[in-house]
């Protein structure tokens, strides 16, 4: 926990520094027509840096020996996070509906431990229902790929 706490605080300080730099670049002071664009973000970044510094120092002095995440817990988290990343990555290529079907099938196979035909109706049904709700009823277009184009959408 102590290390994680310090890393996050350091990261926030870095963000604060970037924001502050950009605010100064566009002008954090006072122009003839009032406060300039960087005026407000400058103080925001200042407070961010100061409060993160306190958190950093508190964590550094403190002795919090709890583990941030155990390996046994982190495995499942990654086995969800990595496929989700891939899912987002392929959406522009194959469209959201086909990606959804693959994603759900993977989840049921890998995490749910399904080995039978229940995967198929769920993996096809969910994107189909999504299609009806968004494209047909509410007329909200979602990203589509070659398969939808082939079917005439």
């Amino acid at each position, binding site marked *: 926990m102590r290390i994680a706490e310090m890393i996050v605080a350091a990261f926030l300080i870095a963000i604060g520094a970037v924001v502050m730099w950009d605010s100064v670049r566009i002008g954090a002071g006072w122009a003839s027509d009032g406060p300039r664009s960087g005026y407000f973000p400058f103080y*925001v970044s200042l407070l961010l840096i100061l409060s993160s510094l306190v958190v950093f120092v508190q964590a550094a002095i403190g002795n919090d020996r709890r583990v941030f995440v155990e390996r046994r817990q982190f495995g499942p988290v990654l086995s969800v996070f990595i496929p989700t990343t891939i899912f*987002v990555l392929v959406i522009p290529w194959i469209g959201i509906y086909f990606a959804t079907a693959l994603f759900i099938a993977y989840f049921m196979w890998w995490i749910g431990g399904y080995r039978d035909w229940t995967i198929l109706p769920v993996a096809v049904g969910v994107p189909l229902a999504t299609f009806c709700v968004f494209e047909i009823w509410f007329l909200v277009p979602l*990203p589509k790929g070659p398969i939808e184009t082939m079917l005439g959408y």
Partner: protein
Amino acid sequence: MDEISSLIGGFATVLQPYNLVLMVVGIVLGVIIGVLPGLGGANGVAILLPLTFSMSPTSAIIMLSCIYWGALFGGAITSILFNIPGEPWSVATTFDGYPMAQKGQAAEALTAAFTSSFVGALFAVVLITFLAPLVAQFALRFGPPELFSVMFLAFCSFVGLGRGSPFKTVASMMIGFWLAAIGLDSITGRLRLTFGSYELMRGVDFLVVVIGLFGIGEILLTIEEGLTFKGKNARINPRIVLETWKELPKYWATSLRSAIIGCWLGITPAGATPASFMSYGIAKRMSKDGDAFGTGRIEGVVAPETAAHAAGTSALLPMLTLGIPGSPTAAVLLGGLLIWGLQPGPMLFVEQKEFVWGLIASMYLGNIVGLIVVLAAVPWFAAILRIPFSIIASVILVLCAIGAYTVHNAILDVWFVLLFGVVGYIFKKLDYPLAPMVLAIVLGDRAESSFRQAMLMSQGDLSIFWANGLVASISGLAVVLLFWPLLSRLRLWLTEKRFFVRRRVQEDVAPTDGRTEAGSGKSRAK
């Protein structure tokens, strides 16, 4: 009685068949959202918000606010039957609700929970009906300095009333302001913090942040805890409902106290979660047999549920009158107002009478409909949790992606959702509160512009926030709240006796054994 006639006009709006259907759809969706872990009021509303872009604002707010009421009801179902709080505000309900279910009194516990939710909400709606027009009228006199000082007060109360480290609260809040500042500066027209990226010009939408923080982050946490659902069955029959209703009036004092606590914490943006804990703790201390709390006392269900609903509902009062939401979900609804083209603030009560009173009328009706729906359909809602988690989780993740995409039709927003999912996961584990960040993103632009206008008025002199009695008292209260953690620590130092009292309250609120292990993750500062 202007309010009464306006309210009747509101009911006329709500009772149109189209709006009634939306109301029922909203409630049912809301209860489902409330039951599912990983989908909560805030991100549920955020995901569904793009669907309402084409509706009239009144219909849209009726549906979305009903989702909110439904989610408030739904959280209790899983707390009592499965010992898994579906929402952070129902953690305190597990303390006595689950033991009651174990003793075979699940139906009584559910009836008590739903009924007290209803009572709490009703109390808050009546408060809104009569107080909101007065507050709005008063707020019409506000200029930029007053407006900024009210927002300052809202943010300071997070620092003062929050349970975690005040520095983390400030850091989280500043991240929100930073995200709000990205993109076009609406006053000077300059680009800020975009670093040359065209995609960043439109800024980071708060909906995307909410879906990531509360949706993906929550799923990752749930998976880490490796939840398995083992629950009690419940079927509510009318006889038990009537018997429980006969018993409930005995606890009128607990209900009233909890409703008042809830309204107070809902109006100041502390939200429903602290309200439910505080109400439970106080009910335990005031009760004659407080030691029996935690073993399945009906009072232990009444207190947190009444307070949570009162807080969740009254959170809309400052949103409607001042444009300052009292909870993350109210913040999302406020963002909806902006998207539908309404200007939140006191002028709503003058210019958008139909909208405001339609919403208030729908709160009355929505809670009645909600009570009937949950009482009648508990077994079905509970059955949702018997769907394997691998299916629920993947569907929720897909919904998060769709919700993010539909905000601006941009794939970059889906990446942001993923990013904020990681942020939400890490921040929750490290006890950074998320509500201040959401509030800061939603209010960021308006807080900044009122601050800058105030600075223009005074030529950069901060004393404008002390210039007259009104603004000085708001700012003063804000500063007191800001330093409240320091002040209370000082007070504890001075009087050792109080130190022990406080210790006892903290122990009362904390779960006494390992029963709520599954819930502890969800209770972490949401």
